[in-house]
């Protein structure tokens, strides 16, 4: 029996992790899974440097399988000589009990994503300042010419003024000077320091005051200025209304049209300043006030069963309809020199290295989604931002055949074990998915990855159809990063992966669903009052201040927008010739993004509405959505044998 027992190892090299699965086959051909392991992929996927990671993963799997104490391991685990834990550091010729290593033929498709804003707010005829200082003071509007507090003595009596106070003047001095200048009409003040309340509390005659204007030195004197501070709990009403600005600054109808982008970007602000002249605006731009004008994105030309040209300015929905009606796509070209051309170049640039040499990578699929991004307004004083429309695209490129044979050869040389390259990735993943309890034919497998969403369907006779679509985890991260205006991609990644919470005291946090967690030893003051995400390693602070509701809704919308739409698109594509949604009953989710804490739920709900069973896979009945391909390689072997 011992001699007849074969030990199989399956290896799946992914973009981020290398997964292995060990199984044994007894003399009657019965397969039993022994162990699995997962290790970060060493080097770029499909290169010989992957071997280091493969060896480490195999070592890990073998250690798990054979270093257990004999007493509670099944006896047949020990039919082969176990590797002693003391021999841990493997040599290049380890005495591993493996008889056969199978490596998957990695799918030669790779996805990438890029985004571009398509509107722009430029303010040149007037300058504006509409930030949200935490503590402005007073309420109401003020209008007048700007004057520095140092020059208050030169002010004329018949004139109205907005006082400009730099950090050189303390709140006590500022308040005293304003109180002294009884004869001068001061209708509002702009402070550099965070002292609006301090000044306001010391005034005899109350005026609205806006503070924390860092670039106060850019404000010139004698400029007609309107200022507004909102009542508690409200947003400003005059300066967020073009006619309100017109009223305060006495604008002509023509000028009123030009201040519309200012008013638009001030909607929802707690306080604002609008000035009638540009501040240090380059003269060339004087007469080119742009009014949130949409920029031309450009056209794409889809070559497929049907060749279609579609203009991105018609919106992401129209583009996706065109993609759908094009059927099987062989290539997508973009109008040269346009924004979409830039984006597609960006999206595929990372993959160019893997394209067949001498050939431009061909785009096999494209996923477009409308989004928005906070962008700094040019002509604004305190780094104000405006939400601009943006479009995000993910593209899928055919790469050259990956040199898997070279990896297999290297592995065989180093281990002395018979190694073969077998299996098509989606087929293997489907076979692996089938080890999920409760699953059955006809089955659909959705591999939710980082760069692409791969799907396959298989019927009871083993017929398989598969498709790889652009748009997956990376696109979600990109949308979260842009919509929340996050400076780091890692922060976006953390927001995507973990639930958010607010640190409400030094001892407890409130999760996004209202649940409260207490910390016996107290919470680091650095986290107090901030939004954090709960990773398994502990709290991670989100430096950008955003309401938790906004973080949650942007995160969930991005996930739904990418994964639900793409999953339905994939299943439609695969079952197109089999009538509406085919006869698929089971949809099994595998891959990295299937481990997400909410994406499988969104998909389960969406497919349930379509009469299908959908859920996160549970490979081998215990592994969750991991290890599908490696497990499938073992299952495939069993299939070949029987």
């Amino acid at each position, binding site marked *: 029996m011992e001699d007849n027992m074969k030990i199989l190892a399956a290896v799946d090299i992914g973009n981020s992790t290398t997964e292995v699965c060990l199984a044994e086959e007894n003399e009657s051909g019965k397969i039993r899974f022994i162990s699995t392991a997962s290790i970060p992929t060493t080097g770029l996927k499909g290169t010989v440097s992957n071997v280091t990671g493969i060896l480490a993963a195999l070592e890990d799997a073998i250690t798990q399988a054979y270093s257990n104490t004999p007493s509670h391991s099944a006896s047949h685990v020990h039919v082969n000589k176990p590797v002693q834990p003391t021999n841990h550091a493997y040599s290049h010729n380890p005495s591993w009990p493996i008889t056969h290593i199978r490596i998957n033929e990695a799918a030669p498709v790779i996805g990438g994503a890029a985004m571009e804003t398509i509107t722009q707010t430029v303010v040149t005829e007037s300058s504006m300042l509409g930030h949200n200082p935490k*503590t402005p003071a007073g309420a109401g509007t003020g209008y007048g010419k700007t004057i520095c507090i140092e020059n208050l003595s030169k002010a004329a009596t018949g004139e109205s003024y907005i006082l400009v106070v730099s950090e050189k003047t303390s709140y006590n001095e500022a308040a005293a000077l304003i109180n002294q200048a009884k004869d001068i009409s001061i209708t509002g003040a702009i402070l550099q320091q965070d*002292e609006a309340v301090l000044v306001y509390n010391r005034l005899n005659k109350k005026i609205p005051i806006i503070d924390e204007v860092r670039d106060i030195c850019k404000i010139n004197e004698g400029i007609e200025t309107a200022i507004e501070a909102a009542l508690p709990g409200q947003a400003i009403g005059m300066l967020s209304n073009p006619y309100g600005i017109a009223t305060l600054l006495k604008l002509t109808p023509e000028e009123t049209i030009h201040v519309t982008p200012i008013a638009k970007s001030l909607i929802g602000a707690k306080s604002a300043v609008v000035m009638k002249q540009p501040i240090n605006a380059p003269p060339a731009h004087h007469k080119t006030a742009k009014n949130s004008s949409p920029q031309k994105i450009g056209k794409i030309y889809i070559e497929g069963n049907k060749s279609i040209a579609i203009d991105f300015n018609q919106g992401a929905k129209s583009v996706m309809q065109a993609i759908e009606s094009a059927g099987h796509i062989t290539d997508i070209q973009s109008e040269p020199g346009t924004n979409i051309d830039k984006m597609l170049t960006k999206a595929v640039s990372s993959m160019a290295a893997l394209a067949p040499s001498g050939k431009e990578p061909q785009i096999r699929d494209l996923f477009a989604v409308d989004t928005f991004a906070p962008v700094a307004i040019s002509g604004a004083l305190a780094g104000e931002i405006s939400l601009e429309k943006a479009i995000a695209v993910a593209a899928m490129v055919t790469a050259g055949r990956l040199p898997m044979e070279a990896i297999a050869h290297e592995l065989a040389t180093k281990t002395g074990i018979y190694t073969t390259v077998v299996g098509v990735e989606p087929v293997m993943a489907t076979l692996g998915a089938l080890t999920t309890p409760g699953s059955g034919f006809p089955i659909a497998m959705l591999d939710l990855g980082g760069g692409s969403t791969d799907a396959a369907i298989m019927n009871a006779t083993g017929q398989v159809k598969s498709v790889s679509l652009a748009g997956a985890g990376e696109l979600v991260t990109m949308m979260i990063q842009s919509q929340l205006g996050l400076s780091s991609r890692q922060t976006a990644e953390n927001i995507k992966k973990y639930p958010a919470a607010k640190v409400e005291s030094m001892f407890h946090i409130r999760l996004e669903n209202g649940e409260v967690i207490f910390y016996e030893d107290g919470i680091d003051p650095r986290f*107090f009052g*901030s939004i954090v995400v709960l990773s398994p390693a502990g709290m991670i602070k989100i430096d950008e201040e955003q309401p938790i509701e906004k973080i949650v809704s942007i995160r969930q919308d991005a996930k739904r927008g990418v994964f639900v739409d793409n999953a339905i698109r994939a299943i439609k594509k695969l079952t197109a010739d089999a009538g509406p949604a085919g006869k698929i009953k089971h949809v099994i989710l595998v891959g990295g993004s299937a481990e997400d804490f909410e994406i499988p739920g969104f998909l389960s709900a969406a497919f349930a509405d379509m009469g299908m069973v959908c859920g996160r896979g549970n490979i081998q009945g215990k592994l969750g959505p991991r290890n599908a391909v490696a497990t499938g390689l073992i299952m495939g072997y069993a299939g070949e044998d029987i």
Partner: protein
Amino acid sequence: MSNLDALKEICAGLEEEGVLYAIFSGHPDTTDDLTSKASDATKASIQTYHAIDIANARILAHNAANHSRLHVGIGINGKSAAMQMRNCPADKPVFQIETDNPREYRNLGTNAARAVKGVMFI
């Protein structure tokens, strides 16, 4: 920097954030001076406690936090100041500073107010 100057900065930090506060001091001069300058809006109830333990800024902060209706206290003693929240261990103040920089005292006041409001510290 005198304790009185430090106190003024701390109070400015508190006031800008709009949080109410009360001052207890071992020095009668301190409170007289501040009473004359405090604005009506602050409505600070200023009292003098001669018997207060001025040994240590941390202990002062801890005691203040435990007496404060808003559960936050600040202690100033010599060149040191501390901010503490109620029920936190006395030997671990949320913030402790030892400096002559007025900006740090202002920030201590701001952060004490933010502790009350539940807003991120600066």
